[in-house]
């Protein structure tokens, strides 16, 4: 594998981001940067109550307000149900949402939208809409949703694909292999843990923003901060009852997504305003709306039971999860499926495995896709249970993982049992360097010595913890990506890809893959991406799919173009194509050399001119997991409960590293986000279901001064089914901090934290509980 990799000249190099210069000079490249002349501005009126029917709505004062051009409510918009989840068709999320409904189901739900000449006028007018609400009892927790006689949140009757609306159950998931009850009974050692995670928000620095207009031919153009331009086109066209081809969606530079922009949240409203008024429209979420009305990570309650033989071999794993999807079921089923499918295959030695899950509605903000996609929550439950198991077995946590983790050539029944809301795809692991990740990570982190060190007896206790993780690379057998490559008459290439760069640098990565195949440098590559009029279809950027799925389509298209070039070169060189290769932009024949510029010119102007171009599609048959071993050191102040993470290291197997700097950046950013999720990030609610902290002052994401040193090791690995051996890397990093930090706290202070974020108050209470318990037990011994 290393030999193969050493052949690369562009792949494996930290090429500059193609859009980097525009970004560091502040060029107007984001969706919100260009407002067409004559645009109207949109303000949203959202629900002030968690659960209510709209008896009546009076918009007359708003319509009379100076500058108002259009008011949208449930009275004048389509009634069809849809899902905001930007997934492939048919979406595995229930159709339980309307553009504007006669019922509101959380504080922040859409009630009306106002378009006006200025944003201020739109906001003022929205405030003049009066709504007569018939308030219904709110449902503010998983337990309340499942209680007998609980208020029915989706009682509308016309929603589709809700498992049991009468009991607030969106969907159920089950997967089994073997007999888990018997397996647990047979086990020499068992542990059980229950964790409960919080509401957390993505907080990309750029809020959702969209600008719409009609082109000179009357087609609708949507410039949006979206991760899924083709899904936006399909979903908005259906809602607006337009043929798909009457809609064009463009994703310019995007200011971060992390999953929250895999939802169609604002495009439909702006598009409707443009269709109704004929005028360009601009709609941007405020930061408060980003917190309240966008999407969040699904809070989950997960119980894990593990059984192991005396030597530490896992014998049974039982995972039971309940997921709170909030008011609508976007991504509910698939996120829950991933809670099992992105964790359980890690430990494939256990013959008895069971996963059961339910997704419930509540009248709280809507959960959706968020980097890690259920794997983050599942990892926390499984990896803290593994830590308890190591303790009980008297094994080093690293050794317990070494005994049990999946390896090359192995499989797990879970791959087939748990797919994206349906059966999955069986797969044999064709690359896995998790063993190396553990070895190199433990060595660099100095794990053995740090683990052996006493936590101390003073107010500050120090400890280390670790965890291991997997994710996927795209969605097997479902999500397609296509790419087109055209040759120019100077020998350069234009790559047209539907893939959606969220700021990750994926446009650059796609170009590197094409350049590698075509034997040119990056200065010969142009990229046009994510424009439904210009680029071929791509599922969009989610599920860690771009490098593996879109990158493979690019590689295949580039190979076809290379074949065409070599055929022309063979004619020009008076030889056969076999044995010819493009090296450094030229092709060497038996007697002379031709350049790509000569071939490009000939392809346009002859003799025998013909465009050199090709398209290719790729649908993955498997979703090869990247792997990671994560290590954390913490200091716990046992007097105040304050946790400080003092060191963090991640050793990652993502297959071939296409661009080292960008790959490290993906992991570093994901770890920072994960540390925030572990320590500070939590949406807090009033007793009536209103978000108390919808801003970046009170919802605390990590700043530069809050983070420990973060070390990333990219371990040598090669995935034979991936482009140039690459897998994915975008999501996996976020899964590490929560369990690794919890396990480090357990090492430092002897307490088992199960409810993030680990605020000083919660930690202090746990410390007090454990001090009381140990006093009682020593008092018990004394008598």
């Amino acid at each position, binding site marked *: 594998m290393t030999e193969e990799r050493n052949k690369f000249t562009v792949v494996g190099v930290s090429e500059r981001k193609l859009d980097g210069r525009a970004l*560091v000079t502040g060029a107007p490249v984001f969706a919100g940067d260009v407002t067409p002349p004559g645009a109207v501005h949109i303000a949203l009126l959202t629900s002030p109550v968690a659960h209510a029917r709209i008896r009546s709505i009076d918009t007359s004062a708003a319509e009379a307000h100076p500058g108002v051009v259009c008011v949208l409510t449930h009275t004048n918009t389509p009634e069809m149900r849809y899902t905001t989840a930007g997934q492939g068709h048919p979406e595995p999320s229930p159709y339980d949402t309307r553009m504007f409904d006669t019922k509101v189901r959380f504080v922040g739900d859409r009630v009306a939208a106002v378009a006006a000449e200025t944003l201020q006028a739109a906001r003022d007018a929205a405030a003049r809409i009066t709504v007569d609400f018939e308030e219904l009892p709110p449902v503010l927790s998983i337990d309340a949703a499942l209680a007998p006689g609980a208020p029915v949140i989706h009682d509308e009757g016309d929603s589709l694909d809700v498992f049991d609306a009468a009991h607030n159950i969106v969907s159920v998931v089950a997967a089994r292999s073997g007999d888990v009850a018997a397996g647990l009974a047979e086990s020499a050692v068992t542990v059980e843990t229950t964790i409960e995670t919080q509401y957390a928000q993505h907080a*990309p620095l750029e809020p959702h923003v969209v600008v719409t207009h009609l082109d000179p031919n009357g087609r609708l153009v949507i410039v949006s901060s979206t991760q899924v331009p083709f899904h936006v086109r399909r979903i908005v066209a259906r809602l607006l009852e337009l043929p798909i081809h009457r809609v064009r969606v463009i994703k310019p530079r995007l200011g971060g997504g992390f999953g929250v922009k895999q939802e169609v949240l604002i495009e439909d409203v702006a598009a409707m305003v443009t269709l109704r008024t004929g005028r360009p429209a601009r709609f941007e979420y405020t930061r408060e709306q980003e917190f309240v009305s966008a999407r969040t990570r699904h809070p989950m309650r997960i119980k894990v039971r593990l059984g192991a033989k005396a030597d530490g071999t896992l014998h049974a794993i039982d995972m039971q999860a309940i997921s709170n999807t909030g008011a609508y079921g976007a991504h509910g089923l698939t996120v829950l499926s991933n809670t099992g499918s992105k964790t359980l295959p890690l430990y494939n030695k256990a013959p008895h495995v069971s996963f059961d899950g339910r997704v419930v509605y509540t009248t709280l903000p809507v959960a959706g896709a968020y980097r890690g996609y259920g794997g983050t929550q599942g990892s926390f439950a499984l990896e803290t249970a593994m830590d308890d198991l190591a303790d009980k077995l008297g094994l080093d946590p690293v050794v317990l993982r070494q005994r049990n983790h999946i390896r090359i050539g192995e499989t797990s029944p879970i791959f087939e049992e748990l797919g994206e809301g349906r059966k999955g795809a069986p797969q044999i692991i064709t690359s896995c360097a998790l063993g190396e990740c553990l070895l190199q990570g433990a060595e660099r982190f100095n794990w053995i010595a740090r683990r052996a060190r006493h936590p101390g007896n003073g107010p500050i206790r120090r400890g280390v913890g670790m965890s291991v993780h997997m994710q996927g690379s795209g969605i097997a057998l479902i999500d397609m990506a296509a790419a087109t490559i055209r040759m120019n008459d100077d020998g350069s290439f234009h790559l047209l890809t539907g893939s959606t760069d969220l700021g990750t*640098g994926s446009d650059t990565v796609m170009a590197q893959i094409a350049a590698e195949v075509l034997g040119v440098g990056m200065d010969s590559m142009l990229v046009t991406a994510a424009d439904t009029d210009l680029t071929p279809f791509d599922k969009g950027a989610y599920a860690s799919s771009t490098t593996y799925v879109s990158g493979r389509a690019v590689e295949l298209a580039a190979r076809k173009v290379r074949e065409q070039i070599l055929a022309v070169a063979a004619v020009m060189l008076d030889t056969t194509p076999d044995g010819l290769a493009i090296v450094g932009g030229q092709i060497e024949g038996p007697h002379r050399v031709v350049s790509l510029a000569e071939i490009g010119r000939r392809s346009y102007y002859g003799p025998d001119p013909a465009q050199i171009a090709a398209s290719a599609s790729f649908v993955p048959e498997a979703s090869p997991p990247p792997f990671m071993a994560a290590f954390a050191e913490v200091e716990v102040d046992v007097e105040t409960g304050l946790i400080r993470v003092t060191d963090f290291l991640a050793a990652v197997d993502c297959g071939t590293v296409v661009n080292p700097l960008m790959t*490290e950046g993906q992991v570093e950013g994901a770890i920072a986000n994960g540390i925030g999720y572990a320590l500070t990030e939590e949406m807090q609610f009033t007793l009536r279901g209103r978000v108390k902290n919808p801003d970046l002052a009170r919802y605390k994401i990590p700043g530069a*001064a809050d983070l420990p040193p973060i070390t990333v090791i990219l371990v040598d690995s090669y995935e034979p089914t991936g482009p140039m051996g690459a897998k994915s890397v975008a999501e996996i990093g976020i899964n590490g901090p929560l369990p690794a930090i919890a396990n480090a706290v357990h090492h430092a202070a002897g307490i088992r934290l199960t409810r993030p974020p680990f605020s000083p108050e919660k930690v202090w209470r746990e410390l007090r509980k454990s001090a009381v318990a140990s006093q009682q037990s020593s008092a018990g011994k004394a008598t």
Partner: protein
Amino acid sequence: MKITLTIDGKPSEATIDPGECLMDVLRRLGHTSVKNGCDRGDCGSCAVLLDGRAVNACLVFAAQLDGAAITTVEGLEGPGGLHPLQFTALDGGAVQCGFCTPGILMTALDLLTDHPDPTEAEVRRALAGSYCRCTGYVKPVAAILTAAALLRDGRRD
């Protein structure tokens, strides 16, 4: 009301509402590198230099600023090319989505004005009000330290 500003070295006249903040005025005038991430001073995406010092443009009333000099990231590039802060961000992998980048670069420029040789901890403290959700700050901080070294060596590009 009307005010006169010098923006990136060029005089500019703006008609403003008395309640308008500098961020909205700058964006309206086409300086869209000044990003609106929160509209309330929490995120630092709109940071610009006001008479040489970094401010969150969303927290300053434009009406107070008649005659002031504003520098945005659009004014950083010189005849010799990119400013070292821009160059090292680009070369060091410090830019992912790039939405926070203008604010971070202007905040860093303010730091380096007084502290040409900052420690890593000083850079991190200076960025405490500048959120980035993509990078984990590892590469932005390293890039600023490299830029500081280049500037100390007298290099502008």
